[in-house]
């Protein structure tokens, strides 16, 4: 029996805003198409704000790439007030797909990693990452968690 296992429907979608007053949405609801993240990477040096919005819950997470802040539902989460240099967005989706031996159960889980990395005044690289599951539950972690 062949079964095509597709990824779960993404419940959080991204929106990217640039310093040339343009923005790119992951989904274009007019054309019913999806923009690849490559379109953000192509303008990465112009990125000022990156936003994840939950489709079904009142949850919006924004990364202020200019100042190194994370805003959750427009409340600013400030890690520290030390100067941050060379701030860069972190965003990817971690997928975990199970397959059973004996049985036919599948489980495809998606976690959204969103945050930024920066250099301290001493040149050290630091990361600030929120991990969000499909239901909008959040944890503070790093890219080795989950």
């Amino acid at each position, binding site marked *: 029996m062949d079964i*095509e296992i597709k990824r779960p429907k993404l419940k959080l979608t991204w929106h990217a805003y640039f310093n040339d007053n343009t923005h790119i949405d992951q989904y274009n609801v007019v054309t019913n198409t999806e923009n690849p993240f490559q379109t953000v990477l192509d303008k990465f040096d112009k990125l000022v704000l990156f936003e994840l919005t939950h489709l079904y819950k009142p949850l919006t997470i924004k990364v202020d790439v200019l100042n190194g802040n994370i805003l959750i539902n427009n409340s600013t989460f400030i890690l520290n007030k030390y100067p941050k240099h060379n701030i860069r967005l972190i965003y990817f989706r*971690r997928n975990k797909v*199970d397959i059973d*031996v004996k*049985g*036919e159960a599948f489980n495809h889980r998606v976690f959204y990693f969103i945050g930024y990395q920066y250099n301290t005044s001493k040149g050290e690289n630091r990361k600030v990452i929120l991990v969000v599951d499909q239901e909008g539950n959040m944890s503070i972690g790093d890219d080795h968690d989950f």
Partner: protein
Amino acid sequence: MSATFQWSESNGVSETVTDGISNLNFGSVDSPNLSPSSYPIVAGQNSFEKFIRAKFSGSFTEISNMKFWKSSGDYKTGEVIKAAANVSYSTPTSSTSIIATSDIPTSEGSALSIQASDGNSKITSPGYTKYICLQLQTTASTPAGSLNTKTFTFQYDEI
């Protein structure tokens, strides 16, 4: 579009590829989606090797950080699953595998690192990973009856 993930299994001398397999049942026949009760493994013998891959289709920017491990399911006495990652396809055998010779990792921290079919660590266009070879091995002391269900997990990061 984001990536679409499928498990794929290869079987036979001339390699028949089955994408979208529904389970990873081990047994005494070289076949995908087999029924263990129809093809039981005699205690002291091995299952046929399984050669599986992850297949990514659709449109995506990059797949990376691919890992594979046994995430749940206890062994019974004398039972073990051997594994090898990033191998080439070979006709599956029920003789003791000379490809899958290491115990499969049982935690994400020690998971097998999986490569794209071209040997790179990242996939940027639709395609397969390299093969993972698995074999369930038993001893004469392995009790008769059903073994415990095991779950394997494949992890990847996508942008």
